[in-house]
């Protein structure tokens, strides 16, 4: 795996390799010394054209736990308005010896462009591009779901909210179906993309019906300003029709879990009771994000387990 650009590129085997590697790496997190020498001497650049504190620090933590050198480059605002192009920024980072670039960009396809334009030769990891994909988010969601539900084959997972503008929804719809889950998207028709019927999932406008007996529900963040573009009439109406509250959460199967990629709008798409309730695995998602990103960096940088004498050195090999 040279790059990670989209979950549509991942076969079931690829996805399972990442998730299983993440599970192995997660054991490091339980140790007193949370660090492996695996990527010592390698440089990972976090290139963030968009603010995203949580994704950025998650990637930073992941790279540091693998002993990589981490450079974080925050270029807030569009490359065009800032004067320096994506290409020139990328060339600069490559010249500094980056082995992998983790890129978050407001333009859909920017990571694909970086990986395929010939501008740079390093590995590219998509940390969220426009309204396209956010593959590591989907991988950490799948990781979290597998921890609670086991094999996802045949499991019913409901994704609710602004699918149209959500890179999280795109990545999850494809990854979860690749892993065998039955995904249902629920949203007002205005917030579903044209052509959604070609996606590998079911679509419903009725949240209650979709939640009945489901194994997991993933609530997407809905931006208040969507209301101004007539996607829905008011936050109250949205919340009534598509928000997850205690009554609706009770429709889920007994061992079901509730996910949210964050940041949440409490009271809008999810009530505080549910967000903080027993079914909520929202905090676990954050923890798992680090393990999944460690696995991705490890795999794209080609550090194969056999070169290292096993992915995890014996505990005593890690300096205490």
């Amino acid at each position, binding site marked *: 795996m040279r790059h990670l650009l989209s979950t549509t590129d991942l076969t079931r085997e690829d996805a399972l390799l990442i998730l299983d590697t993440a599970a192995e790496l997660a054991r490091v997190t339980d140790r007193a010394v949370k660090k492996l020498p695996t990527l010592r001497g390698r440089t990972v650049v976090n290139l963030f054209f968009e603010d995203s504190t949580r994704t950025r620090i998650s990637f930073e933590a992941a790279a540091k736990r693998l002993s990589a050198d981490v450079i974080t480059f925050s270029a807030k605002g569009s490359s065009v308005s800032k004067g320096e192009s994506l290409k020139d920024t990328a060339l600069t980072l490559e010249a500094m010896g980056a082995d992998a670039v983790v890129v978050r960009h407001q333009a859909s396809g*920017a990571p694909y462009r970086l990986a395929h334009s010939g501008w740079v030769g390093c590995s590219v990891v998509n940390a969220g591009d*426009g309204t396209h994909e956010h593959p590591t988010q989907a991988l950490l969601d799948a990781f979290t779901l597998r921890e609670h539900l086991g094999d996802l084959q045949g499991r019913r997972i409901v994704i609710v909210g602004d699918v149209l503008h959500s890179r999280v929804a795109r990545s999850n719809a494809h990854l979860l179906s690749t892993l065998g889950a039955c995904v249902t998207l629920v949203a007002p028709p205005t917030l579903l993309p044209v052509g959604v019927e070609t996606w590998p999932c079911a679509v419903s406008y009725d949240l209650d019906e979709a939640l009945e007996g489901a194994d997991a529900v993933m609530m997407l963040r809905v931006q208040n300003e969507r209301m101004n573009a007539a996607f829905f009439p008011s936050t109250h109406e949205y919340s009534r029709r598509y928000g997850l509250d205690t009554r609706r959460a009770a429709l889920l199967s007994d061992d079901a879990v509730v996910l949210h990629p964050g940041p949440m709008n409490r009271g809008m798409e999810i009530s505080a009771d549910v967000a903080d309730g027993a079914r909520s695995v929202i905090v676990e998602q954050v923890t798992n994000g680090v393990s999944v990103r460690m696995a991705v960096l490890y795999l794209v940088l080609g550090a194969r387990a056999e070169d290292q004498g096993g992915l995890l050195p014996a505990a005593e090999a890690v300096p205490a």
Partner: protein
Amino acid sequence: MSVVLRSARPYGEEPVDVALENGVIAAIAAPGTLPAGDLEVDAAGLVLLPGLVDLHTHLREPGREDAETIETGTRAAALGGFTAVHAMANTQPVADTAGVVEMVWRRGVEAGHCDVHPVGAVTVGLGGEHLAELGAMADSAARVRVFSDDGVCVSDPVIMRRALEYVKAFDGVIAQHAQEPRLTQGAQMNEGALSGLLGLAGWPAVAEEAIIARDVLLAAHVGSRVHICHLSTAGSVDIVRYAKARGIDVTAEVTPHHLILTEDLAATYDPVFKVNPPLRTEADVMAVREGLEDGTIDAVATDHAPHAHEDKDCEWAAGAFGMLGLQTALSIVVDTMVRTGRLDWRDVADRMSVRPARIGRLGDQGRPIAVGESASLVLLDPAASWTVDPTALASRSRNTPFAGRELPARVVATFLRGRPTVLDGALA
């Protein structure tokens, strides 16, 4: 200077010798029967057509001379077989006054590679609010007859109605860039399953079709003629076909790229394939070919849109809309329309010369190949093929979507009123 074309095949028909003198076709005779001219051109096996006329060219001057100039753009035009181009108004400053259109026109005359007919802006600064001084542009030395806010739609129905009415006084035409602005805010590619997958904001077909439907009804209501720029969808073809059947005075053009390329190229996220209107589906491509074949679509117009390298060598959203077209247009038409049996050479002359000249009200372009007619002509080799090399094109820019593609038919010579502008495939 007299020129004799030996054994040229007018419209691909029987070979004849054609003598050009004093700007007109002086004689047409059986091969070998005409006396020698100052310049002899061996045209054996070559097809002779009236010089091509482009209704839709962006020459970028004044304002973006880094992307194209009137000199470089008209060189590309001549090499592509064109003897006249219509220079779009979205320059900096906008061609919305007699001063700017006269400047463009004069620079075209000075360059001398083909006729340059400036298109006047419909509204001041392409702002869509106040009519530009259309009459002043019509009465200027540039004698503007085609008016367009191309790049922007004249979306206000009242402004559109007034413009359609106003230009009747000097037999002008409004060329509409049909794009409902509210339905296409931030649009990046054709709206469909693929845009949803790629996460690129969609440019729905209905945004084009709704404006075309409105404008043909407006044209009928006020008794004006209207021209539709770069029509790109199957629905648009249907609407124009319906309007023509009802006797509405509408004409329409299609670009070469919409005759051949489809939206799936957006999956590369390479902005060289980013264009407005966007590349559509295979069904749309077939529908515009059908429309061009049956005459619903009157003309092929290049929408030649040069862009500086840095405006294309970037992420998709930051990329500029537009593609080069002047030097590849004829080959694409041969590939998609002639080789498929949809058009013969007379039809090619009709769609690429006769009708565009008529729409632009150009008196001495798009004329028949006959004695006494203006000698603006193109000679092409239908059997040749060539590979598109962006760096070898005459344009200042390199944004052709056909890089590396092998295309049929090659322009061998172009004559502007009897004077060669291109000989042996190179500028004369």
